[in-house]
């Protein structure tokens, strides 16, 4: 039914409506895989702007040129919402991720619990910036919950983003790091030493919403629904993302 509606839109309006999706960089491959199907299904043209969620939030505020925002965490979506730009009705949290502890591939460190990260052998701990980057914030939340944050905080080497944190571990100069499972999966130079169980860690959730005051808002809403929908799910899963335990639902 959705496809028909969208097809009608396309047929009526001549050139397909262009939907600009601002998406966290880590979603790039998955979204580029999905794009052709989504375009075909909805009769739209998807454009993407990939970047750090923090930058994307700023850009939306400054330019109001995005139709859809796919943030790596809820915080930045909140920020955009506070500026009154989010079409709150369409806001969803469709994806989750898992934190993993990685060590250099040739390291024989064994890490079974968060507690092990406080051991003296781990002189450096690579995180994405725990103050600013979602992955870092999640890692910090996990460590705080495990009660080791105060002991490891002086060993933290903050990276600009998850990718930098991962690369730092890859270099062998840092003994361990905490990154997303999706990122760890693409590197052969690190070994996953510990997967943080969902119940131990913070609730990791990607936020997705259409944005207001845009000419194609109805179409953007449909894109949001499609991306959160069952057709997109397998592809996100193949890239290592988790579906949120809760079924997609309006955020508030």
């Amino acid at each position, binding site marked *: 039914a959705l496809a028909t509606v969208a097809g009608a839109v396309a047929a009526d309006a001549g050139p397909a409506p262009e939907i600009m999706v601002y998406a966290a960089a880590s979603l790039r491959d998955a979204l580029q895989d999905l794009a052709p199907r989504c375009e075909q299904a909805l009769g739209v043209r998807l454009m993407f702007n990939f970047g750090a969620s923090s930058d994307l939030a*700023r850009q939306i505020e*400054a330019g109001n040129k995005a139709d859809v925002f796919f943030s790596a965490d809820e915080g930045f979506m909140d920020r955009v919402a506070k500026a009154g730009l989010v079409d709150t009705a369409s806001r969803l949290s469709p994806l989750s991720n898992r934190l993993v502890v990685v060590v250099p591939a040739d390291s024989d460190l064994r890490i079974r619990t968060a507690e092990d990260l406080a051991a003296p052998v781990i002189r450096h701990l690579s995180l994405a910036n725990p103050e600013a980057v979602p992955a870092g914030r999640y890692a910090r939340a996990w460590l705080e919950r495990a009660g080791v944050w105060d002991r490891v905080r002086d060993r933290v080497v903050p990276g600009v983003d998850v990718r930098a944190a991962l690369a730092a571990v890859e270099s062998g100069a840092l003994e361990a790091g905490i990154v997303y499972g999706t990122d760890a999966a693409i590197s052969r130079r690190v070994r996953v030493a510990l997967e943080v169980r969902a119940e131990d860690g913070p609730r990791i959730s990607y936020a997705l919403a259409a944005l207001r005051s845009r000419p194609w808002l109805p179409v953007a809403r449909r894109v949001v629904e499609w991306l959160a929908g069952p057709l997109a799910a397998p592809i996100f899963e193949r890239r290592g993302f988790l579906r949120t335990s809760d079924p997609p639902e309006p955020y508030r």
Partner: protein
Amino acid sequence: MIPAPVVPLLLSLKVAALTTAAILPPGILLALLLARLEFRGKSLVETAVSLPLILPPTAVGYLLLRLLARNGPLGSVTLGFDLDLLFTWKGAVLASAFMSLPLVVRTARVALEEVDPRLEAIGRTLGMPPMRIFFEVTLPLARRGLLAAAVLGFGRALGEFGATVIVAGNIPGRTQTLALAIFNDLQVGRDREAMLLVAMTVLLAFGAIWSVEGLLRRRKRGVQ
């Protein structure tokens, strides 16, 4: 949907070339002022010109974004003329231009300072007004250094990432230059694709450097 790597290549070429073209006239003019005039606060002007160099590019990007934002100081002006800078290739040119300016100004200044003012004076006794002197004496005499300034500006525009990504976004096919595409590929772990883009960037830079090198080659009096 994935753009052939040729798209960012063409975009980079366009952005870098336009940046260089846009930055040279004001850059050389500014360099001329700094080279020829002694005034109070000269170091301040120089520091101001150098700002994009000494600050992290992202900061410059944020600043430009702030200035050009819909409700920013220059936003209305921009919208009034419908320049449509933000998140377009024009924004990429703007960001690169800012980042290249300090390099162009300082290098051009070195070149202009080495021009013998007595030759300019002779030109004036021959009846050339200052404008003509500038174009027929000063510029040709400073040409090696000005070309070097252009190469630096072009190179910087090619490699510019931090400010561009903020002002122009990283929109494949539209504002994703080679530098942004490389960053993007590296970020998602596609090192192979990144290397291909790096190779294309190098080729582009080599082309520019090689042609300028050709322009520079000239004979000198045969001293050892």
